[in-house]
């Protein structure tokens, strides 16, 4: 039991908080627990959850992806041009959007690994480039995305389960098999002790590029999903998504120091952030108070992490 808690304790806390918040949300919602309410709720959190998965993978490798929001915006803008028309055209469009996002992520990885730039500054710079490209692709919000296909993705499967649930579950299911591979394990190993991983002959460079590529991949899925909700493209949505994805990762219990990470926790973190927004709306609290509550939740979540200071037995442990 103790081993289980030590390994899964932090994401379990965020999942518990999410369950509590969700129960409260359903209890005050005028329509209660219906499929429609759950679908609308999960749709709201899907893009951020996808982004949080990508950010977690990069954070595990001891990096950070500040360009994740711009990649999401760029993918969203590309989707507003390509994901429309006949089924074959839609399918090709989705593939193209995912390729664009993954290519952006791979570029980040190459700049970090071979350009030897610190992740913060490298992704800050590439983020500016991706924002610029998004503005070129779609200077003002607009475009169109096939409404029938978008309905499928934002409604329910066989009237039993919201499609968004499957999308979110799918993102975790993509990651766990990758983590079992040699390169996937190296992502975590490189975040823990890069030199040791390198000296042990692990493919550190390939693993880091893969981490950023996956981040771009999940960001493009997020951009697509926003497109399904709004049926259009908007180049300006990037910055807040970047910051919220980091917030979701931290609320989910992943430390920014790398070497360990909880994809499920980050998904819970993303949904917590979105549920707070809905709670404020249905509680009749002034919507202007929403940013304040979100900030306080993030502040409490990170302050919670400093409880470890009470457990240290040796002062030098403070600097870990």
């Amino acid at each position: 039991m103790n081993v289980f808690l030590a390994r899964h304790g932090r994401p379990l806390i965020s999942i518990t908080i999410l369950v509590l918040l969700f129960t409260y949300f359903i209890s005050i919602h005028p329509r209660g627990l219906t499929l429609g309410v759950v679908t609308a709720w999960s749709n709201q959190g899907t893009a951020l959850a996808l982004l949080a998965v990508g950010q977690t993978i990069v954070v595990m490798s001891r990096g950070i992806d500040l360009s994740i929001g711009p990649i999401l915006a760029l993918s969203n803008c590309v989707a507003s041009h390509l994901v429309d028309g006949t089924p074959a055209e839609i399918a090709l469009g989705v593939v193209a959007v995912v390729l664009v996002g993954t290519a952006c992520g791979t570029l980040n990885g190459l700049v970090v690994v071979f350009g030897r730039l610190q992740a913060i500054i490298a992704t800050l710079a590439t983020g500016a480039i991706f924002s610029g490209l998004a503005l070129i692709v779609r200077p003002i919000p607009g475009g169109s995305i096939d409404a029938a296909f978008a309905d499928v993705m934002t409604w329910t499967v066989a009237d039993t389960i919201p499609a968004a649930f499957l999308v979110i579950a799918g993102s975790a299911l993509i990651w766990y098999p990758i983590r079992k591979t040699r390169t996937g394990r190296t992502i975590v190993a490189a975040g823990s002790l890069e030199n040791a991983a390198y000296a042990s002959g692990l493919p550190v460079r390939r693993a880091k590029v893969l981490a950023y590529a996956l981040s771009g991949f999940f960001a493009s899925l997020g951009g697509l999903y926003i497109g399904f909700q709004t049926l259009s493209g908007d180049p300006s949505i990037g910055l807040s998504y970047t910051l919220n994805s980091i917030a979701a990762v931290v609320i989910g219990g992943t430390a920014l120091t790398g070497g360990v990470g909880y994809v499920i926790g980050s998904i819970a973190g993303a949904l917590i952030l979105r549920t707070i927004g809905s709670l404020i709306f249905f509680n009749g609290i002034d919507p202007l108070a929403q940013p304040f509550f979100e900030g306080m939740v993030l502040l409490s979540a990170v302050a919670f992490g400093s409880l470890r200071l009470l457990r240290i037995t040796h002062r030098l442990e403070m600097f870990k």
Partner: protein
Amino acid sequence: MSDVSVTKARPKLPVDGPTLANILAILALLVIGGLQYPQFFSPTYLAQQLQTGAFLGIVSAGAMLVILLGHIDLSVPWTMTAGATVATAVVGSDPQPWISETGLLAGLLVGATIGLVNGIGVAILRIPSMIWTLATNNVILGVLVYFSGYYARASQPSTLMTWFGTGRTAGLPNILIAWAVVSLVVLFVLRRTTYGRNIYMVGTSEVTAYLTRLPARGVIVASFVFAGLCSAFAGMLLAGYAGQSYQRMGDPYLLPGIAAVVLGGTSLFGGRGNYSGTVAGAILITLLASVLSIMQAPEALKQIAYGVVIIVMVGFYSLRDTRS
């Protein structure tokens, strides 16, 4: 022994490699701009560029002290907005000069308080600065939005703020003088005070600094307070320059502020960097935006050029470091 380390940490030339690279890039931009538009070389135009660059310069002066410690301050945007909003709110409460000018003090107090909270979270609660300052930024945003809605209640700057933002003394824009004063303070602190030396020590290795009984926590808290003061000051000057305070006024200064410091050759891992580079970096970023504006490049192209310049220059520094 001590002589050796002093010379190493404090280069004799005020102009080091990255600063020189920035100056070369600035000259190249001036030539490119000047070939197309001769008025580029006129003192009026150059003074105007430095004037718009001063806000970024003051923000990056504060950002530099924090980055030298290996930390980062993401609360810049709403610290700027909070400083300006509180200052103009005091002005709005009573336009009597002796009351409205206390708005400046109130704004600085807000900046120092935010910096203090940032510093305590990072130095004493041991929370990664990137997350802690992101959270405080969101809380300030929340407080401001909640109390004033999406527009500031009283947004008129005081007489002194307007004088700072738009006035001139002996032909020089006052805001440029303000930037110069902030720069001299930072230069003096970094090169001539124990606190300045300690910043480099703590930035190089906090554990070692702690074990040698340097006041590591105090250094971190003080630097965040200084960064908060700089952000709030820049916010109030911006309000004076623009004639009002407004929500999101600080947003365009967060990432460029960090970029200016990094372009100037300061390492984000801390412990290394010269202030002259930060000044040159701030000028380079301002000039780049201006050259592209004058060439009527669309916003998209500006963003791309900005990203490419950072990657090329910082990539160049890191390649140089690897070789040496």
